[in-house]
């Protein structure tokens, strides 16, 4: 019963806020509605409204999917310091990180949903009722790990918040094993997504062993970027305590991950370009253009430039410590990796086709609008979850003690998180 009140009070908290909050929600909802409208158009006409073709059969949607799975996996970078290294400052924000993981996984799954040709047949993937080609199909693995990750990242924060809601500490022995599972699971979601691509012997651009490590490295560079920016927003917009040491830790992780990620890119470039075989045709198309077609060349070099700016700033300690330059690095790194891992990974895998044809791909407006709608939905989910989470953690939402019906008690509960001095 109290649990239902917990949910009700949480939802109530999500619907409380000032003008700025509602304007923000309104914008996100409007963008989501616009995206949904476009999606209905896509359902009616078929995927012909996108720029995809038999030659390039995956495009903007799957590019965003691959990127977002990485963002989701990066929540583990808060979980490990919080629970393994017992960093109290990180522990204060780890639930927000898990909320971001939830939003990212939901976005990733939505991107897959809008990409498939028959979403009405989505029930076919349900084991036993449908037909689930597990363990052969990597997509089946991806469905398992993503849903599992969503469940884990809903379960743990729900449990912790529920305990705090009832004014007690969560039982560490109970949920610590689940946290450990979630840590390994986070690595697995992104490894499985990498294997989704690298398992295709038909696509030499993807069929490299380094793809899994590349995915993890770039996820650990782009995820913290988003978390750092988000935490600063939360610090400014709410009174939730976000200590600078968290941001410093994340920035340091991002630095190393970015350096490793760029090293991996360099390794790929060398291997493909030193003795250029037919297998390097996709890389050649991406970086140098092929036979006069160079649609992605500008974007990939922009991505490399952004990543280099980011890694340079991050590698210089004073610049990393200053919030302005750190934020620039975060934005550059996030965008750079979105370009390199999204479009810069998915599209060149199809160019040239296995029969040697070069057919380029440009996303259509409909694809953009639907993608924006999904990103807006993800931000919306995170905003709502963070709103409720912050309220509970600051002690503003508590179960009414001694009664079966919980009531909203304003300010009388013990905050789970200490206010900053």
């Amino acid at each position, binding site marked *: 019963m109290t649990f239902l009140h917990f949910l009700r009070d949480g939802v109530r908290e999500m619907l409380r806020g000032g003008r700025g909050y509602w304007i923000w929600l309104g914008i996100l909802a409007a963008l989501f509605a616009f995206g949904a409208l476009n999606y209905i158009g896509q359902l009616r*006409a*078929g*995927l*012909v409204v*996108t720029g*995809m*073709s*038999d*030659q390039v*059969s*995956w495009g903007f949607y799957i590019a965003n999917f691959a990127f977002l799975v990485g963002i989701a996996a990066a929540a583990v970078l808060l979980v490990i310091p919080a629970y393994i290294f017992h960093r109290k400052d990180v522990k204060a924000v780890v639930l927000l990180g898990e909320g971001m993981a939830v939003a990212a996984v939901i976005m990733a799954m939505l991107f*897959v949903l809008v*990409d*498939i*040709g*028959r*979403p*009405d*047949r*989505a029930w*076919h*993937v349900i084991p*036993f*009722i*449908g*037909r*689930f*080609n597990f363990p*052969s*199909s*990597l*997509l*089946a693995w991806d*469905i398992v790990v993503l849903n599992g990750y969503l469940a884990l990242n809903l379960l743990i924060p729900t449990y912790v918040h529920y305990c705090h809601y009832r004014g007690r500490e969560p039982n560490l022995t109970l949920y610590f094993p689940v946290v450990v599972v979630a840590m390994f699971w986070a690595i697995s979601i992104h490894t499985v997504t990498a294997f*989704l691509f690298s*398992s*295709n*012997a*038909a*696509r030499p651009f993807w069929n490299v062993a380094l793809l899994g490590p590349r995915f993890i490295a770039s996820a650990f560079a782009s995820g913290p970027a988003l978390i750092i920016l988000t935490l600063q927003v939360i610090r400014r917009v709410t009174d939730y305590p976000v200590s600078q040491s968290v941001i410093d830790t994340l920035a340091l992780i991002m630095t190393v991950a970015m350096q490793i990620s760029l090293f991996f890119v360099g390794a790929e470039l060398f291997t493909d370009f030193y003795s250029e075989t*037919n297998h390097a*045709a996709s890389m050649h198309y991406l970086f140098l253009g092929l036979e006069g077609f160079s649609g992605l060349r500008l974007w990939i070099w922009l991505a490399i430039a952004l990543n280099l700016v980011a890694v340079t700033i991050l590698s210089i300690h004073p610049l990393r410590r200053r919030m302005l330059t750190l934020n620039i690095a975060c934005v550059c790194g996030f965008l750079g990796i979105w370009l390199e891992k999204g479009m810069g990974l998915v599209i060149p*895998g*199809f160019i*040239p*086709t*296995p*029969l*040697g*044809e070069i057919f380029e791909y440009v996303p259509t407006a409909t694809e953009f609008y639907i993608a924006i709608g999904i990103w807006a939905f993800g931000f919306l989910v995170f905003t709502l979850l963070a709103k409720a989470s912050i309220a509970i953690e600051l002690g503003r939402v508590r179960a009414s003690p001694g009664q079966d019906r919980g009531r909203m008690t304003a300010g009388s509960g013990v905050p789970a998180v200490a206010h900053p001095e």
Partner: protein
Amino acid sequence: MDDERKASDEPGNFSHYRRKFLKGLGTVGVAGGVAAAGAGPARAAWGGSTFQDALGDFFQDHYQRMTPEEMKDALARIERNAKRRFGVDITCVDTPPIPGVVFGYALNISKCKGYRDCVHGCIKENNQGRDSQVQYIRVLQMDKGSMNLEKSEHYYAPESVPVEGKFYLPVQCMQCDNPPCVKACPVGATWKDPDGIVVIDYNWCIGCRYCMAACPYWARHFNWTEPQIPAEELNPVTNYLGNRPRPKGVVEKCHFCTQRTRKGRQPACMEACPTGARVFGNLLDPDSEIRYILEHKTVFRLKEELGTEPKFWYYTDA
């Protein structure tokens, strides 16, 4: 690999329960739909289907698990659907594979002149969408002396073929014995039938296109839009796993004309080829023409190094 029509890897009773569950859902849905639609006649509003047909389609089980009655219902729905979409009466049957047969295909590149008659014969036979622009066969124009597919020309349109210094390589689904697309499909909508043909259940495919990424021969094609076929060109003799009119949003590919070959007839591409460059037959029959070619001619397969074991060979006169 689960390639028998009725094989199931779940406990025996479960398929029974699932069938009842789906049927129950379907019945409830239909009852609700009929009630909602009132006592009037069935309206063709659900993407060109009636509500009952749409529900029947929605709850339809996988080909390999359907009972004969469910299959009959599915075939009847397909025929009704075609009538509504194109105004043509078609027949749709389920042709099981012939036992003791594994199909193989050989193509004589000394004889192929690049006419593309096979491409268009296939389109007509297999009811491919003229709007969705699906073509199962793609003929590559290659430079003589090279096997580099990256330098092939797909869109050749000279005044006459064969062009001096070029040879022609038609590529279609290789019906691999170790198919990467079958491994890739998350819902098992594509599998290798006992006669070696890799088939697709078009009513089960969810259109994720992972199989298209996995195929090394670019053999699988997607219906980006609803296939449009002129009524007078529609081939009314269809089968479930073959040339029945497909819906939008599903993947399709060459299936060695199951509606013909499982009845002993030649595939349409072989029939259309004027030069006799195409040879088709049963690999298990030691006296077949295909076996003669594979044992006595200089044969090769495309991308053999990928380990897919294609059952489509190329050979030369020498």
